[in-house]
């Protein structure tokens, strides 16, 4: 029988070495944790220019002079799950900052924290109610017939629905990690939601509790999200920068508002279970959401390693809309890596800004015959991120 060649002595000496460094690290960690930590999120200044019930409209103060700003403002619609503060996590990792630096006149919806009285609000109330009123407000304020619209995740689904129902009000549409096709088994959520009894849950809870949804998201990958993440934290707990970034992310990820009951019910039944949206069969307030009515330019971002909204849930959209100017961009990252990864900060926001600038309506000069401002519609492109370097999953 061969002798087991376990280098016990080497393993033990390594452990001993680590043990020697441990007191110093523990002291450093203590200093870090007990010191003043800068963990504030969403620090880019804005003002609330419109409010309806719990919903607020934030307008970020431009950082560029007025003549350098894009004429058409951009309205960003986040999901009802978690908070839009993720887009402005910290200086240096802020999509909001990047948009402002690129000359975008930026508005963002803050969906607030639904209470029991909001349990009757449907998707129709959010899309044709709050969103429509906000779009009209921005149009009136800027004296423009159309604005740019960008949606994230469930907010992207809302933006798609809105654009199909009100195409005359939207100049360009940007969708990011937006689920539109739910008939796939690529993601765990898509498998799990098929069996969920939404009626029973709404009857029991009223609004869908944010904490319960958070628990569900953690169960998507318990090994990484409940064990490895905190092991990583302990390994770097003596690094102030790391701790601050970690705490910011923790603040955001566990800041989960409840989802209004009727909205939750319809999203699960009509989208996850019946997959009506991609089939243009979904109805809001008696009106059918016909994707062919989306005739404005569309750019669609999604993450190759997104375990919440897999590529199969996103990539069909551009083939179902009526627009001829569409583009798919698949980035080598996960669901929120697009927004929080420092690598993609340099790629994502400037790409959107440039895409919007190319499609900015040009005001005709005096004495010059008005020509069509539209560029020749680009052919449908699918960028498989050949030029974008691979990024580890967040």
């Amino acid at each position, binding site marked *: 029988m*061969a002798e*087991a*060649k*376990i*280098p016990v002595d*080497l*393993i033990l000496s*390594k*452990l001993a070495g*680590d043990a020697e460094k441990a007191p110093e690290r523990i002291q450093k960690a203590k200093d870090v944790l007990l010191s003043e930590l800068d963990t504030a999120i969403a620090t880019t200044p804005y003002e609330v220019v419109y409010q309806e019930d719990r919903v607020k409209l934030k307008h970020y103060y431009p950082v560029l002079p007025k003549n350098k700003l894009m004429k058409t403002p951009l309205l960003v619609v986040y999901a009802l799950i978690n908070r839009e503060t993720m887009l402005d996590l910290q200086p240096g990792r802020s999509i909001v900052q990047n948009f402002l630096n690129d000359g975008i006149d930026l508005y963002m919806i803050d969906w607030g924290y639904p209470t*029991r*009285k909001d*349990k*009757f*609000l449907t998707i129709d*109330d959010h899309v044709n*109610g709050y969103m429509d009123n906000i779009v009209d407000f921005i149009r009136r304020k800027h004296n423009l017939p159309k604005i740019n619209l960008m949606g994230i995740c469930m907010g992207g689904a809302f933006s798609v629905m809105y654009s199909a129902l009100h195409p005359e009000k939207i100049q360009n549409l940007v969708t990011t990690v937006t689920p539109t096709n739910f008939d796939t*088994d690529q993601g*765990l959520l898509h*498998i*799990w939601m098929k*069996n*969920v*009894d939404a009626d*029973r*849950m709404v*009857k*029991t*809870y*009223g609004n869908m509790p944010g904490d319960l949804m958070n628990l569900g998201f953690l*169960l*998507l*990958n*318990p*090994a*990484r999200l409940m*064990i*490895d993440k905190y*092991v990583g934290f302990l390994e770097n707990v003596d690094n102030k920068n790391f701790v601050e970034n970690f705490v910011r992310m923790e603040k955001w990820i566990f800041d989960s508002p409840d989802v209004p009951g009727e909205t939750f019910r319809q999203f699960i039944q009509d989208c996850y279970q019946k997959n009506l949206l991609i089939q243009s069969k979904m109805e809001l307030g008696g009106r059918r959401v016909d994707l062919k009515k989306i005739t404005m330019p569309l750019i669609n971002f999604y993450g190759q390693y997104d375990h919440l909204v897999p590529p199969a849930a996103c990539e069909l959209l551009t083939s179902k809309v009526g627009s001829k100017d569409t583009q798919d961009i698949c980035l080598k990252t996960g669901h929120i890596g697009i927004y929080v990864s420092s690598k993609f900060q340099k790629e994502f926001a400037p790409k959107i800004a440039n895409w919007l600038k190319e499609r900015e309506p040009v005001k005709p000069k005096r004495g010059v015959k008005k020509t069509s401002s539209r560029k020749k519609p680009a052919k449908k492109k699918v960028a498989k991120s050949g030029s974008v370097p691979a990024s580890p999953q967040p």
Partner: protein
Amino acid sequence: MNEKKTETFDPKPLLEAWLKTATNFWGPVLETWSATSGTPETSLNQAESRTMKNLDSALKSWKVLSSVMSEPEAGKSILEGIQTLPEIVLKMTQTGWDGYLKLQQQWYERLLGIGQSTEAYRFDNLDQDAVNVWREIYEKEFQRLLHMPQLGLTRLYQERANTTLDNFTLFQAAIAEFLQLLFLPMEKSIQVIQEKVAEMADEGQLPENPKVYYQMWIKILEGHYMTLLKSPEYTTKMDTTLGAFDNFIASKNEILQDFLQTLPVPTDKDMDELYQEIYLLKKRMREHEKTHEVETSRQEPQS
């Protein structure tokens, strides 16, 4: 001595002796008490004489009862009723004991399974029996008691209390099964990493850095979870657990509603009705506003 031990205990003489003693004691006491109350009736004495009349009637009822009970047939039927009580208790204890023995058998079988090699990333032969046995025992033996129809003025509240208790038990069972299922990848990954380390040791390729072992284990664990979380067994178990939780919350809320209704505070049900009315009113108002805006904008150019 041995013959005495084999004789069965007959409680009948004891019962008769008790009846006789009680009658002999209470009878003269009550008669003496009633005899001393020969004073003329006044308003104060009226209350006292009512008390004496009640005592008299109680004494008479007792005499009748004791004479009935002293008859052999009545005494026999009472004794038989009393003797069935231990049988009921015995049966319940036996059921509980059988259930415990079943559980113990399952544990022993699991213990015997330790040390057998395991196939990575496979969850066949899940030890369902062990986790389900408590729920089966409960559903077979105890749940029926909680589903018995209730009687009386407070029957509705009693039924709700029983339903809540039933749902709570079912939820506890479901969450225990769910957590046990969630823990399976942990067990399997530890077994797999042990086998892997043994293989690497045989090949002489063991890394020195302990962190490498952790990285290997976490990757194996992640893989196991990915396999489990996609499986129909997990999805079904998750749905069952969610359903059990929802049922428990719903029944608990019903009881709380009943309790809140005794206090001067609005319940969730009251507030929901109000919220719905407000929601519908606001919706109608907004529709009217929009219609009015459109009509106003049409009329403006004319004026």
